[in-house]
């Protein structure tokens, strides 16, 4: 391609992009849509569902979940439900693989959707059992298809999931057009 035509073509491409809508957004004011399967950091935990089996701690590749339990005497279908004295998630070393959530047999632990937990000190980056109890019950639908099928959206305010609803039931899925509208054109 002699004559500099290649350069001319390239210049036209950049010129066309000049009038295009920018793909980036200004972060704190605008945010890109996050999918509800997003594996975020503020873990959602249902004390009512947890039996203290420590599967999550065992399955964690990093070994960052620390669990101390005490007998509570409360019995479930499978056996005794233990009371959680310590449930520390050391989020500084967490890589958000979600294996703990995948491992939980009682759907008690869920991923969250947050990503803004920056702290000045590493020691602040621990989620304690009290924090887990107090946190908003807005679980991510990662490995929790039952939440997704009922049309639940963690980014809508006031749509908390109670512990009874966190279990595995089926519901109606959205239509193709709705999905196209929301996840393709809306993004």
């Amino acid at each position: 391609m002699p004559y500099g035509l290649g350069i001319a073509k390239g210049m036209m491409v950049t010129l066309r992009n000049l009038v295009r809508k920018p793909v980036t957004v200004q972060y704190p004011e605008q945010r890109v849509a996050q999918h509800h399967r997003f594996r975020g950091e503020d873990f959602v935990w249902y004390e009512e569902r947890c039996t203290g089996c420590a599967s999550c701690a065992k399955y964690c590749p990093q070994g960052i979940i620390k669990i101390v339990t005490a007998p509570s005497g409360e019995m479930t279908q499978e056996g005794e439900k233990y009371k959680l004295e310590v449930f520390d998630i050391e989020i500084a070393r967490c890589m958000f693989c979600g294996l703990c959530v995948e491992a939980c047999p009682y759907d008690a632990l869920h991923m969250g959707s947050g990503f803004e937990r920056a702290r000045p000190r590493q020691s602040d980056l621990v989620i304690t059992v009290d924090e887990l109890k107090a946190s908003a019950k807005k679980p991510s639908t990662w490995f929790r298809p039952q939440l997704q099928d009922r049309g639940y959206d963690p980014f809508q305010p006031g749509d908390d999931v109670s512990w009874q609803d966190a279990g595995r039931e089926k519901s109606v899925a959205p239509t193709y057009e709705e999905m196209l509208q929301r996840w393709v054109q809306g993004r």
Partner: protein
Amino acid sequence: MVNLPSEQITINLGPQHPSTHGVFRLRVTLDGEVITDVEPIFGYLHRGTEKLAEERTYTQIVTLTDRLDYTSSMINNQAYVLAVEKLAGVTVPPRGQYLRVLTAELQRIASHLMGVGFFLQDLGASGTPLMYCFRERERILDLFEMLCGARVTVSYMRPGGVFQEPPPEFWPAVRHLLDTTPDAIAELERLISENEIVLARTKGVGVLTKEKAIDSAVSGPNLRASGVAWDLRKADPYDVYADMDFAVPVGSNGDSYDRFLVRVMEVHQSIRIAEQCYRDMPGGPVRSELPFFFRPPPGDAYAHVEASKGELGFYLVSDGGIAPYRCKIRSPSFINLTVLAEMLIGWKVADLMVIFGSLDVNMGEVDR
């Protein structure tokens, strides 16, 4: 001829340098601007993945493979789970296999876009092609976020399939991506692939001959750019690649431009494969049920895939326990990097970045 002896200077390119793609150091001896000696020094990103794998269960290791070549984690996942399945004798349901191929090809597009983008950035294009590449890559990462909640460290595949059925909105999004990406790639090609400056900078620069490439066990697009039609998806098909209809781009000169162009053309082929996956996606389960902790019988297995950088292989030895006795990773970037020093000598500093960028190595994979 009057030969003026000039003082040779040694400079350290990296480990902190704008275009060393991670933490990589090249000790370069220069005569003027001409490179007379190169000593690559790596290991700055060593995390001991192979050793860590000996203390993780087979499922947990999946999360480690994400972090090898962090621009193509899906393909790393695939290589690893294939090795585990071989070791444990597990079969994968067809839907799981199709999903794997689909995501692996999307990841290949993303990885090639990133490689091409940074290659052009190394050429000195002030961010524009890189930004266009990233724009397209982001759309693929959006899909991964839908699939598995993470954009880069996906951990999507599991021994026995993929971790879960994709959400319903995944399919219209894939359709849209497959419809629009070819235009975007065509625009990128218009922007750059016939640009006279790019041609002058890359044509004939850093030629890797066919013989040298084979002798040094170079693989992937770098090998194909040197004129060897070798693609593991064809030569040793895994998952459902045997059913896929696609062509392999093969270069003729083995220079930086061919390496660049092979990647761009592979993107088109990947779109072709992804189309077929989308069209032929069977129903059924995505994962054959395996316990979280499982004990493969003692023995060893090697599985390799055509990763975006070349042949990625996992060699696993089991002693019957819940964790592998030994995990060896054949990482393509590391082996592709071995030819670098030889290719650089005699070229100028500016060419160093072009040649290095055209090899498209990823330091996470080199140092492991």
